[in-house]
C-alpha cells in the first residue's frame, strides 16, 4: 500500500512478532545474492560470447549503469525513510533540458557549471516534494505522482516541442560522457563517487543512521528527538539533486535532448532499489545494494541483446526479479518471526 501509511493490515501480519523484515546480518548476504546473480549472468553470457567481457563492452555497460545508479542512490535514501520519489524521471527531464539549453546558448561554459546547474535544478524540485510531504502532510506517493506530472508539464511547455541536438552542444560537453581518466569514463567515475559517498553517509554518519531510524519506526524516531523534518527534507532534496545530476549526464551522453527525456524512468529506478534489497517500508537496505540493483538491471538488458534473446523478455524478467526480491525478503522475515516465537516461549 502507500509507503507513508502505517495502516497496512496489521491483521495479515504474522502474529506474535511485529511484521519483521530481516536480521541485519542477512543484509550483507542480501547484497551478496545480487552479486552472485550478476556473476552468474556475466559468466553465462561471456561463455556464449567472450566479447561480452571486452573492454568496450564493459565500458558500455558501466556507462549505461551510471545514470541509473546515480538516481537509485537518491531513491534508496528516500525509500529507506519509508517514503518514495516518483518524480525523478521528470526531474531528470527538466534538468537535462535546462542544462542542454544553457550549454547550447553559452558554448564555452565549463562542464562543472553544467553539473552544478543540474544539481541545483534537481535540488529545488526535491525541496518542493519534501516540503509538501512534511508540512503539507501529503503522502509522498501522491506528492511525487503529482510533481511527476507537473515537472514534466513544465519541461514540455518550456521546450514547446523543440529539441537540443548534439551539434548545438559544445564539444567538451559531449565528449565529457566518453572522456576518461585512468581509463575510467567521467560518467562512471561520478556514479562511483555518488554511490560511495551515499553509502558512507548512510552507514557511518549520524544523519544516515537517523534516516534508517525514521524509516524503521517513525513514531520512535519522533520520541527519540530526531530532527525528522530536517532529515526528511534533506532526503528529498538529495534525491532531487541526484536526479538533476543524472539529467546532466543524460544530456552529455545522448547529445540529443527533448522534453520527453527520462519519461518512465522512475519505475526503473524504483525497480533497481527494490531489487537491490531496500524494503519499501523503509528502515533496511543499503545504497550500494540499490546501485548493484541498477547494475544488474542494466547488465540483464545488454546480456539479452548479446545472447540474442528476444529483447522483449527484458521487461518481464525485471518484473519477475522485483517480485522475487520482495518474496525473498518476506520469507526470511516470516522464518525469523517463527523462530522468535519459539525462542520467546519461556511460558
Amino acid at each position, binding site marked *: 500500500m502507500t509507503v507513508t501509511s502505517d495502516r497496512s493490515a496489521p491483521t495479515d501480519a504474522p502474529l506474535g512478532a511485529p511484521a519483521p523484515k530481516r536480521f541485519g546480518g542477512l543484509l550483507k548476504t542480501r547484497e551478496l545474492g545480487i552479486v552472485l546473480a550478476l556473476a552468474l549472468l556475466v559468466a553465462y553470457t561471456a561463455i556464449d*560470447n567472450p566479447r561480452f567481457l571486452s573492454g*568496450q563492452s564493459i565500458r558500455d555497460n558501466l556507462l549505461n549503469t551510471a545514470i541509473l545508479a546515480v538516481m537509485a542512490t537518491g531513491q534508496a535514501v528516500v525509500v529507506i525513510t519509508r517514503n518514495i520519489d516518483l518524480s525523478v524521471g521528470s526531474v531528470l527531464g527538466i534538468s537535462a533540458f535546462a542544462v542542454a539549453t544553457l550549454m547550447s546558448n553559452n558554448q564555452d561554459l565549463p562542464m562543472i557549471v553544467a553539473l552544478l546547474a543540474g544539481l541545483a535544478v534537481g535540488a529545488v524540485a526535491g525541496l518542493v516534494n519534501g516540503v509538501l510531504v512534511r508540512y503539507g502532510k501529503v503522502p509522498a506517493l501522491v506528492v511525487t505522482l503529482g510533481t511527476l506530472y507537473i515537472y514534466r508539464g513544465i519541461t514540455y511547455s518550456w521546450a514547446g516541442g523543440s529539441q537540443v*541536438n548534439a*551539434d548545438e552542444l559544445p564539444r567538451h560537453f559531449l565528449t565529457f560522457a566518453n572522456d576518461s581518466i585512468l581509463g575510467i569514463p567521467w560518467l562512471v567515475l561520478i556514479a562511483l563517487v555518488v554511490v560511495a559517498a551515499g553509502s558512507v553517509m548512510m552507514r557511518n554518519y549520524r544523519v544516515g543512521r537517523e534516516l534508517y531510524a525514521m524509516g524503521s519506526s517513525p513514531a520512535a524516531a519522533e520520541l527519540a528527538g530526531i530532527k525528522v523534518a530536517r532529515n526528511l527534507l534533506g532526503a528529498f532534496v538529495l534525491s532531487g539533486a541526484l536526479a538533476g545530476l543524472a539529467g546532466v549526464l543524460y544530456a552529455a551522453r545522448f*547529445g540529443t535532448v527533448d*522534453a520527453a527525456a527520462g519519461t518512465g524512468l522512475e519505475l526503473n529506478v524504483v525497480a533497481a532499489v527494490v531489487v537491490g534489497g531496500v524494503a519499501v517500508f523503509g528502515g533496511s537496505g543499503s545504497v550500494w545494494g540499490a546501485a548493484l540493483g541498477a547494475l544488474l538491471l542494466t547488465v540483464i538488458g545488454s546480456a539479452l541483446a*548479446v545472447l540474442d534473446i528476444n529483447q522483449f523478455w527484458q521487461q518481464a524478467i525485471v518484473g519477475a526479479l522485483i517480485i522475487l526480491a520482495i518474496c525473498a525478503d518476506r520469507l526470511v522475515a516470516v522464518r525469523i518471526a517463527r523462530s522468535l516465537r519459539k525462542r520467546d516461549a519461556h511460558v
Partner: protein
Amino acid sequence: MLRSPRTLLSVTSAALLVAGLTACGGTTKDSASNTGGDSNQASAAADPNAAIKEGLKIAFLPKQLNNPYTDVEVGGGKVAVEELKGEYKLVGPNDASASSQVSYINTLIQQQQDVIVVAANDPNAVCPSLNQARAAKIKVITFDSDASKDCRDAFINQATTQGIGESLAKMALEQAGGEGEIAVLSATPNATNQNSWIEVMKTELKKPEYAKLKLVKVAYGNDDDQKSFQEAQGLLQSYPNLKAIVAPTTVGIAAAARYISSSSYKGKVAVTGLGLPNQMREYVKDDTVKKFALWNPADIGYLAAFAGAAMASGKVTGAEGEKFTAGKLGEYTIGADGEIVLGPPTEFTKENIDKFNF
C-alpha cells in the same frame, strides 16, 4: 459477503459483453470481412480547371512532435500553406503512439479543418477516425508513413520504395568495401516504409554483385535515440566483424554514428543510411560517416500541402492519372492507389553536405 458482489460483477460484465458484442455469430479471422466500413472513395468527379481555394484550413499531424526530421517536413508544409494563402496548423502527440494520434484527429474533425496531413503511427489504428474525418468532408493526405489505403485520399511517397531500397543496398556495398557482414538498425518493427525498404534491400542483396555481403541482423531502435544508441552497442558486441550499419531512419543513423564516433570501433565500422544533413554534419566531418542519403523532407510537406489543397478545391479526387501543380516543385501525377511520388533521394558526402541546411 464477498460471493454476492463478485458473482454479480462477473455475471453482469459477461452479460454485457454478450449483449454488446456477441450479437452476431462466430466471427473468426477468416470469416471477418474487414472492409474498414464506409470507405467513401473519391466522391465527386474531378474538375481540372477548378481554382485552388484560398483560406483552406490545412492541419499537419506528424508521428510525434519534437522530432527534427518531422520539424523539417512540416516546415515545408508551412511554406506551402502560406503560398496557398491557407491556414496552417500543427498538432501532434509527444509519444509516437496511435492512440494519442486518434484523439488529435478527433479534435481536428471538431475544428472542421479542410485538409488533414497525417503520418500514421499505426496504419490501422487511425483508420476509423480518419474515415470519420473523410465522412465530415475533410481530405486526408498521408505522408512519411502511410495509413491503409481505404482511409486516406492520397499518400505522398518520399521516393519509390524500390529506389530507396536499391540505394541503401548500393551504399552498404560501397561502405562495407564490397564484402563482409552488415546489419540494419531500423525504426519500429511495424514501421510501414522502413520494412518495405528493408524488403527491397534484401531482394537486392540476393543479386550476384552483392554475393559477398551478408546481412546478419535487423535491429530495432524504435526511433528512440537512447534505444537506438544501445541497439548499436548490442550489434557490435554480437557481431565483432561487422563492416557496416545501415540505418534507414534519421534517429537511428544519428545514434549509431554518435556511438561509433565515440567508441573504439571508429574507422572500423561504417555507418550509412537515411539521415538529416544537420544532424549528420559532425559525423561526416569526422569521417565516421562517408555517405548517406535522403530526399528533401521539406519538399514532402510542401507537396502534401499542395496535394491537399488541390483535392479540397475539387481539382483532383485522388484517382490515378490526375495531374496537379505543386508550386516550385512543378507538376505531379497521381499514381496507383492515390500514391504521389516525390522523386529520387539525394546522396550526401563530405563534399556536398554544407550545401544543405535541414
